[in-house]
C-alpha cells in the first residue's frame, strides 16, 4: 500500500474511517455539504481511490470500504516526512518537536511511557 494520497482523497478516506463503510451516494451527499463538491467530483475522487487500491467497492450500490487504516497512512506519511526532513532519524524529529516547545508536560509524560514500553 504505497499509494500517495492527495488531500481530496484523504477527505474521502477520512469519512470512511470515521463512519465506516458508506455508499458512494451517501459520500457524495456528505462531501457536497462539507466541501461543496458536486456528485461527479466525488465520484471521480472515489474512482481515483479505487484505482490506487485504497477503497474497495462492495455490492451493487457501490458500498465503499477502506482498505487502508488511518494509522497506516499516518505511519507512511510520518516516515516520508522523517526521511525527507530528518534524514530518516526519528530521534532528530523528537528532539526538534521538544525544542520547539510544542509539548505539554502531559505529552512528554506520554512519550516517556511510550519509550519505556519500547525498551
Amino acid at each position: 500500500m504505497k499509494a500517495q494520497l492527495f488531500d481530496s482523497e484523504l477527505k474521502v478516506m477520512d469519512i470512511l474511517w470515521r463512519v465506516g463503510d458508506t455508499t458512494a451516494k451517501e459520500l457524495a451527499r456528505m462531501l457536497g455539504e462539507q466541501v461543496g463538491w458536486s456528485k461527479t467530483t466525488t465520484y471521480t475522487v472515489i474512482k481515483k481511490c479505487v484505482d490506487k487500491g485504497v477503497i474497495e467497492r462492495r455490492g451493487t450500490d457501490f458500498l465503499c470500504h477502506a482498505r487502508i487504516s488511518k494509522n497506516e497512512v499516518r505511519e507512511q506519511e510520518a516516515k516520508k516526512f522523517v526521511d525527507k526532513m530528518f534524514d530518516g532519524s526519528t530521534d532528530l524529529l523528537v528532539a526538534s518537536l521538544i525544542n520547539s516547545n510544542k509539548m505539554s508536560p502531559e505529552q512528554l509524560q506520554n512519550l516517556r511511557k511510550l519509550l519505556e514500553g519500547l525498551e
Partner: protein
Amino acid sequence: MLEILLSASAMIAVGILIRFFAMNWLPKRIFVVIWGLVSVRLLVPFSFPVTFDVWQLLNLPALRTGVTPGVVGGPYVPFQLPWPDVVPPSAVVEQVALSWTVVITGVWVVGSVLLALYLVATHYRFRRKMRTSLPVEHAYITAFCLKHKLRRSICIRQSDQIRSPLTYGVLRPTILLPAGMDFEDEEKLSYVLTHELIHVKRFDYVWKLVFAAVLCIYWFNPLVWLMYVLANRDIELSCDEAVLKRFGQKVRAAYGLTLLDMAERKRTLSFVGSGFSKHMVAERIRVLTKAKRKSVVGAVVALALVIGAMTAFAASPDGPVHERTDRAQSHFNIPGAPLEVDADDSGIQYSPADILNDLTVRDELVTEVREGFPSPEADNANETAYDVDVEDADPASPPEEAPDTEEPTPPEPDPETEASRTTAPVSEGFPYPDPAHRTQTFTRLSASEFETLVVNANGRYGIHGLESFMERASWSAEANYGARADASEFEFYLIELRDKLWVTYEDAVWVTTNLAQVNLRGGMLTQMNIGTINHGPA
C-alpha cells in the same frame, strides 16, 4: 481580411515597440488595454460573415438599385468551386488559384481547430483537477471574504495539487491557494489574496480566454504569438502594480519576496488560470524595483500611437491600403461572406471595417470630455487648466469642435440620472477651481466633474466607452499621485468604480459618493455641499 491582418499586426508591432522602450515609464495597465484593443479588432470581423446577411437585408438593399433582398449574392464575384464540372475549361488559371486558396484555408482551419482542441483539453483537465479542491477554514480568509464583497461570490479554496495561488472562473470566481500555505502569515496572505482579487475584479480570466481565442484563429501570425505571451505577462504586471498602489510603495520589498516565495513553489498548471508562474517572476520583480513615477503624457502618446497604427491601416476607406486589399480580396470572395459591398457603382465601398470604425468610441469620447469641460483657450472666464499636457500631447485626437462656453452638456435624460441630479445637481457655472487658489498645473477632477463624466460615459457609450473613459480618469489620478497623500486611495476607488459600473448605475453613484469623501479627506475638496459644489486646494 488582409486589411485587418495589416492593421492588427501594425498595432501589435507598435505595442511591442512601446513596451520595449517605455516599459518603466508607463502604467502597465496601458499595455493590457492595448492588447485588448488589438484582440477585439482581430476578433470582431469574424462575427461579421454570420451577421452580415441580416445587416444587408435590413439596410444595404436600399442603397442598391435593381437588386432585391432575396438575391443578395448578386453583385459579388461568385465563388467558383475548383471542381471540373463547375469550372469551364477556359478558367484553368483561375482554378489553380482557387485550389490554392482552398488548400491555404484548409491548413488554416485545421491548425486553428487543433490548437483550440489542445488548449481546451488542457484547460478542461486543469479545471477538473481543481474541482477536487477543499474549502479553507481560517479566520483571516473569512474576514477577507466579508471585507471584499463583490456581486459575484468569491470562493477561496485550497488544493494540494498546485504549488502557487491562482484564480479562475467568471460567474463564480475561485481563488485557489496551495495547501500548506502559511495561513498565519497574514501579511503575505493579504498580498496574495489582494493580487488574486484584482484579477477577479478585472475579469482577467475572461481576457486570458479572449487572448487564447485570438491565438487559435491567428496562429499563423508570429506577432500574435508574441502578443499572447506579452499580454499574459502584462496582466500580471498590471495586477502587481495595482497591489502596490493599494498597499503603497513601501511594501515593494515585502511584495517582491512574496512573489519569489510563490515562484519557488512551482509553475502553474494551466495556460489560462491567473497566477504566479516561475519564468515571469524574474521580470515582475525587476519591474517592481524599477517602478518610476508614471507619465500621463507618455500614456496618452502610447495609446495614441497604437490607435494611430490601427486607424492608419483601417480607417481610410479610400486610402491606398484599402484599394490594394480590394484587389487581394477578389481571390478570397466566398459566397455568404462578402467582405466588400459596392452599393450602387458609385465607388463607395462598405466593408465591415468601415462600419466598425464608424463606431469607434474613443475619439468621440475625447471630444465628449472636452465639450463637457471647455479647453483653456475656449473658456477664459473660468480659466481652467484642465489636463493641459494631455490635451497637447494627444496627436490622434480629432480637431477641437466649436468650444462650448456655456455650462457643460448635462448627462443624457436617463430617468435614473435625473433622479441623481436632483440630489446632487451640478451648479450653474461648472465648478472649476478658483484660479486665484490654483497651485498645480494639473487641475484635478473634482468629485462632481467626475460624476458627470461617469454618468455621460456610461449612459452614452456603455461598457466600452466607460473603459476608455476610465483610462483617462486614471491618468488624472496619476497626476494626483505626487500631489496628494490620498491619491492611491482615490485611484483604488476609480478601479473599483469601473468594475462596479459594469453592473449597475446605482453602484456607480454609490462609489462616486465614496470618491467624493475620499477627495474631501485628501484635501482635494475643502467643502462639498450637495446643492452647490465649491472646492479648492486646502
